């Protein structure tokens, strides 16, 4: 069962501002039933100030709570103030959301963005432009860039928890990784890797190596029909066995070995070397 805060439970069991404003000045529709959640936000404005907000949502407990929280937050705000509301504000208002459910707060933020665009007479919210990266959940590069930036995301897993992108067939993982690197740049490595000056404990190193193998390295290799298994870690030497296509060819093995080493150096520590297990 999800570990929801009391605030989330309260907003789920007693959602505020349920409904649809008939003569709304702004409407924001996001999500789709096929994706598991959808939200319709309607706003009434007076002199560029939100005087009423209502929502209708299809979704899990936290999606309902996030939408309810959003309507409470946005009421009374000017349109310029509303524009600055982030998904983190929604999550904070609810005393946090489980990380796997952060996409509910992102959906709220997107609905607000769409409603504001609608009020200002744009055809589409700026976030809806761009190229679709995740085909399973129809997430564009523009959305990914913004959410990664605003929430300081570092890993594909985090991106999936916040936007759902990459949570279906996983074929977009290399693209998500590319956007992560573009947006966060070398910061990704810095944020994940501990202070370089500090000596890492063996346990921590092993754990990080394992995590990096599972989350960063193997998903990418598997897309090319390659795979690798972590066999042992002895000091700074990581022993692996090669599987899949690359296992048949010494050149491919070396290429894969090099890829792994670069990634491990980036995510864990500079000292690491990768060797084939005998």
């Amino acid at each position, binding site marked *: 069962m999800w570990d929801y805060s009391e605030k989330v439970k309260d907003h789920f*069991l007693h959602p505020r501002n*349920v409904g649809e404003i008939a003569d709304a000045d702004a409407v924001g529709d996001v999500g789709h*039933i096929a994706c*598991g959640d*959808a939200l319709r936000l309607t706003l009434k404005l007076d002199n560029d100030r939100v005087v009423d907000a209502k929502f209708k949502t299809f979704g899990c407990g936290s999606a*309902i709570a996030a939408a309810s929280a959003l309507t409470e937050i946005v009421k009374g705000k000017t349109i310029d103030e509303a524009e600055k509301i982030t998904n983190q504000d929604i999550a904070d208002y609810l005393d946090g959301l489980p990380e796997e459910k952060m996409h509910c707060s992102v959906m709220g933020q997107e609905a607000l963005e769409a409603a504001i665009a609608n009020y200002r007479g744009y055809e589409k919210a700026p976030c809806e432009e761009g190229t679709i990266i995740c085909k399973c959940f129809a997430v564009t590069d523009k959305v990914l860039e913004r959410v990664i930036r605003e929430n300081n995301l570092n890993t594909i897993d985090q991106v999936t928890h916040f936007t*759902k992108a990459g949570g279906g067939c996983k074929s977009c993982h290399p693209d998500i990784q590319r956007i992560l690197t573009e947006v966060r740049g070398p910061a990704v490595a810095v944020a994940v890797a501990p202070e370089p000056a500090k000596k890492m404990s063996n346990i921590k190193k092993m754990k990080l190596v394992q995590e990096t193998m599972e989350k960063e390295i193997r998903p990418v290799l598997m897309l090319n029909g390659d795979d690798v298994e972590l066999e042992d870690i002895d000091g700074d030497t990581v022993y692996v066995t090669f599987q899949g296509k690359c296992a048949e060819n010494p050149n491919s093995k070396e290429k894969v070995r090099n890829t792994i080493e670069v990634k491990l150096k980036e995510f864990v520590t500079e000292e690491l070397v990768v060797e084939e297990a005998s």
Partner: protein
Amino acid sequence: MSRTVYVDNNATTRVADEVVEEMLPYFQELYGNPSSMHTFGGQVQKRLDEAREKVADLIGADPSEIIFTSGGTESDNAGIRGVLESNPRKRHIVTTRVEHPAVLNLCRQLTRHGYELTEIGVDGEGLMDLEELRAAIRDDTAVVSIMHANNETGVIFPLEEAAQIVKEKGAMFHTDAVQTVGKLPMDMGKSNVDLLALSGHKLHAPKGVGALYVRRGTKFEPLIVGGHHEHGRRGGTENVPYIIGLGKACELAKEYIKEEQERVRSLRDKLEENLLTNVANTKLNGHKTLRLPNTTNISFEYIEGEGILLLLNEAGICASSGSACTSGSLEPSHVLRAMGVPFTAAHGSVRFSLSRYSTGEEIDYIAENVPPVIKKLKDISPYVKEIEELEQKAASTVNRG
């Protein structure tokens, strides 16, 4: 919470009082190691043998064909890996797309270790095509693993027909019977099944104990290598109190099979009929009759499952859902998707699974509590128009009929 109405018995069951009572002496009085030479330990071996007889008796097997394990997942792993390792030249596996993760994820993982996998699909009612199975088996197929009944829908596969085909083709047949042992009568003596996995906590024994049936004469390598326990087929000192509990639970299950088939089935039917008639836009997932007597899986269209569960939880009702939000992944149930259930229905699927402890009063309580929950979520939903269209369509169909 004022009361608990537990209808999630395919997830786990309450341990029977008789089982607990039977287990207790083995913690502090009869705590010896059955492998010991002294009488104090040795006397436990006899009780272990009795438990083995009871498990064997429930499924019509010989006691020597029963290996105790830590549960259903270990039994599945031990069964499938056990025959793969003893037939190293055969590198092909056949299973279905609707297996429990204990089988499906294992088989998929094995494809990264040089095995090829064929996954057989199911139709809209969750049934498999035996001809598709026949066509899938190759000369190098080592093992076919097909569940007896599905944990989510309760749909029962034609086990013996499948086993017959597998035997003719010369492969080994493994079945995950975790949901059926104790609910359906079985006779391994007359069966073509080679390996069968069962789990204690699905039949009112505790979690952490199970068994694997291995037909006599089957080539089998142990998954857990250790001492000579279980005739060298599963290392590790036997989990004596739990095995004693499993034995007792199997003895009880044999007595209760008739009750499962009659009283539990009629309660399930009553609940199902009530919800399908009294709540608009509902439909049954899975074949109407080829199904476990205790399980019903109903889709509430355009309503999201986690919301339903959380609101039912407020009323003390414990059920489960195939919605994406409850699965921890972002996709709804792989079983419902394999059946081609549309997203609008898969996200709103709820499974009620009963047990011998379920009462008629509880069923009435659930039937009373579900409609307001659905109404509440419907009132929040942006899909009002779609819901009303469906309702009108249903109403006009009824009028025409």
